[in-house]
């Protein structure tokens, strides 16, 4: 499982553009930052109000006024900036955020993401997710390919969607998939994973080009 998460995180890291602003969702997406070199000059936004969020501080150096969107302690990198909630979402909605990386419960053939509620069971609220999916220049979904063996990439979302917008890319522990006008296109397979295995774990129709490259990773020390 940890290996699966690392595959996803490492592959997503490659998608981030040097010198841009990126928002990583709580959970699996947060770990993407482990595979991002400081040299790339990427600034991480946390929607609760910081541009330039850093790693968790060493024990004893936490500050009660500096947390991420999950309420966990973080640090601020040199050259960071703090903003209020309206400004933070101005950055998101106004297209100033190059990419958001979010977890997903389902993605469907139209590239629509569902990640904020399971009716009658789990109603956490959308938090910043709807703004992020609507406003970021690129939306990257980072999730396990299946949940308890059930495909999460489905013909049509059965859960309430987060936005009608088509996400930019889906990165799972099995594959990289790109939603297009024609539907979901399989772009890459994880190391050692066959196209057949991907098709078997996907409920949605996948367009499969002739050559499916294996995911490549950057060599970043963790």
């Amino acid at each position, binding site marked *: 499982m940890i290996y699966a998460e690392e595959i996803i995180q490492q592959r997503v890291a490659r998608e981030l553009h040097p010198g841009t602003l990126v928002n990583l969702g709580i959970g699996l997406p947060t770990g993407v930052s482990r595979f991002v070199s400081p040299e790339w000059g990427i600034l991480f936004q*946390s*929607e*609760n*109000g*910081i541009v330039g969020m850093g790693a968790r501080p060493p024990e004893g150096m936490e*500050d*009660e*006024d*500096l*947390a*991420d*969107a*999950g*309420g966990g302690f973080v640090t*601020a990198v040199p050259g960071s900036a*703090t*903003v*209020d*909630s*309206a400004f*933070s*979402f*101005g950055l*998101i*909605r106004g297209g100033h955020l190059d990419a958001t990386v979010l977890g997903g419960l389902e993605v469907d053939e139209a590239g629509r993401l569902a990640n904020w*509620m399971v009716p*009658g069971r*789990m*109603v*956490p*609220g*959308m*938090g*910043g*997710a*709807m*703004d992020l999916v*609507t*406003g970021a220049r690129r939306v990257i979904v980072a999730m396990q390919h299946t949940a308890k063996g059930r495909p999460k990439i489905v013909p049509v979302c059965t859960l*309430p*969607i*987060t*936005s*009608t917008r088509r996400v930019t890319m889906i990165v799972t522990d099995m594959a990289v998939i790109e939603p297009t006008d024609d539907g979901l296109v399989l772009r890459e397979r994880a190391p050692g994973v066959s196209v057949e295995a991907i098709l078997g774990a996907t409920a949605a129709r996948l367009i499969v080009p002739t050559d499916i490259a294996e995911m490549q990773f950057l060599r970043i020390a963790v």
Partner: protein
Amino acid sequence: MKNAITPEAAADLIPSGAVVMIGGFMGVGSPHRLIDALVAAGRGELTIIANDTARPGFGIGRLISAGLVSRVIASHIGLNPDTQKGMLSGAIAVELVPQGTLAERIRSAGFGLGGVLTKTGLGTLAADGQRIIEIDGEEWLYAPPLAADFALLHADRADYNGNLTYQLTATNFNPLMAMAAKTVICEPREILPVGAIPPDAVDTPGVLVDHLIRRAA
């Protein structure tokens, strides 16, 4: 010049049934002493407008756990099972609003504007029963201004004019709520003499603040 009052005296100003905005994000930047005083005062049937309801027994979660809240307008309640339970059982009416829309709705009320036009939530459950306004062939989701009777704020520093400064991610909704409530009560970490905060460092001008809470004894 503003007199600094105790949290208890401030809680006495707030009647049962009041609509109360509370600053903070998962308790970071919330006025914890004010919340404690409000719990102690036992005012019920409160409507709480806030980003979230924190965790059980922490921050706004203390009001929820004490059963004093009948309505919540927030963007996220996922880390407070008590609020979720209250919502599913019907004990607490919960209106979930996308976080950026919530921020703009509060700002809109405080800035004297007529509401918010956003793409966020279009075509989702968040648009259910909401008005869609078409402008030049494009659809926008309309969200009305959101005001309150009281705003309970945290700040890092204040002066006796009521000028406020916030620190790091403890800023969040505090400066927006300072504009949007009839009565604004702020609990700063420290209160400085007038003139000690330079004008460019002030985040919320003191004219917006009605009461400051005294430092802890």
